[in-house]
């Protein structure tokens, strides 16, 4: 069953298609949710809510673009909503973390996804959300500003701070690995 057929089946409310969708997307979407929420329980809650929304609104999906992208977008929105509920975004964003970006941090391609995930989860929720949205999901600052109810400038400053933090952590990681 290809993606188009799957979507059609889902739009007809087919239970098997729903199960198939879950089996196909649960893993990647759980990864997305975890990038935002850190806590596995919260991520799973968001995952379920996201799937529910996908099932309920799949009729709105017009066969344009990637269905996976559409599902991912729903998941990201769900995660942000949860994040906002959990701890007001502005609170975490207002936190000022002064971290100097260290240019000498080398891109360690040998670094595992788990290690990088751990670094990402070190970030404050606000930084992490902006970095996720911009660097990984590929949203523009304008979109991020709308999604997080912040200004574009705030989004940019948050991104630079998140990057600085990550670079610093990477540098520390590199040192420890070298030793």
């Amino acid at each position, binding site marked *: 069953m290809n993606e188009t057929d799957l979507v059609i089946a889902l739009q007809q409310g087919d239970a098997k298609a729903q199960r198939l969708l879950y089996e196909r997307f649960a893993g990647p979407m759980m990864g997305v949710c975890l990038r935002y929420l850190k806590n596995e329980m919260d991520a799973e809650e968001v995952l379920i809510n996201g799937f529910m929304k996908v099932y309920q*609104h799949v009729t709105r999906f017009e066969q344009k673009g990637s269905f996976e992208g559409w599902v991912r977008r729903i998941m990201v929105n769900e995660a942000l909503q949860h994040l906002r509920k959990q701890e007001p975004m502005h609170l975490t964003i207002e936190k000022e973390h002064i971290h100097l970006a260290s240019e000498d941090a080398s891109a360690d391609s040998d670094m595992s996804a788990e290690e990088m995930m751990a670094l990402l989860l070190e970030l404050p929720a606000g930084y992490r959300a902006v970095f996720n949205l911009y660097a990984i999901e590929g949203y523009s600052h304008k979109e991020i500003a709308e999604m997080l109810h912040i200004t574009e400038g705030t989004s940019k400053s948050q991104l630079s701070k998140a990057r600085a933090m990550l670079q610093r952590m990477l540098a520390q990681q590199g040192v420890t690995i070298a030793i």
Partner: protein
Amino acid sequence: MSAEELDKLFRDKLKDRPVAPSNEAWERLQARLQQAAPQQETPNPFMVPVASQEQKEERGAVRMWYYSAAAAVTMLLGVGLWVNRADIDPLQPSATVATVQETKPAAIQNSAPATTVEPYQTAPSATAQEETFAQQEMKQAQPAQAMAAVSGKAAGQQQTSKRNAVTAPVKVQEEKMTPLKEQAVQEQSLLAATTPANVQESAKTASEPSDLKIVVKLDNTQATASLAQASTTVDHSPNQEEHTSGSGRVLKGILKQVKNLKEGEKVNLEELGITKHTFALETRIGNKKITKTIEL
């Protein structure tokens, strides 16, 4: 490492990194789906919760308005009550003062005889004191003159009567007030009215603003009537008592005496040989001035 490199590193590693959810997740999702199944009959189930959320927000806003209105009303009520209470407060002390005044006349009556006794004792002994008293009287004579002027009586006569009283050995010990009392007595005898005495008393108290002052004037109207015409010397000169506010003990003693003498008042008066007395009482408590005349 540039920002772009950093972004790419994380994007490549984490964008499509699958994490297996727990097995219970699907069961929970299924349970959710079954719950939502009947709701799916509605054309747009998603819109319903959104609308309800908005309604909730609106309800919350309305509720907040109600709360704020209630708070405002309670505040207004509280302030109003408080203000009213503040208005009532000044009245209450006056009422209590009035009651105090009622009790005080009796006390003054009690104390009056005691003071009358004292002058008799001291009278013969202290001639030297006479001078000092005379000076005091002279000092006080000026305000008395002013008061007399206020009262509209002949000041000169009063002064002369006062000086006569000062010279009289019996009256020497009498305090400043005595000349005025004599004057008052004369006035009373002339006018057959107790009001002038009160006027003078009040004027004196006004001139001397002590914290708590009780002025008692005892006028033997009969004696004054007879003696004033014959000569200004009066056997029973008016008695003045000044109680300073600090003398709470004095008040208590007076009250005790009042209680004791309430029953035996007449007896004491008879023992003193005073058949008829006019007590002019004036108390000043704070800004309140209370005057009362009692005839026995």
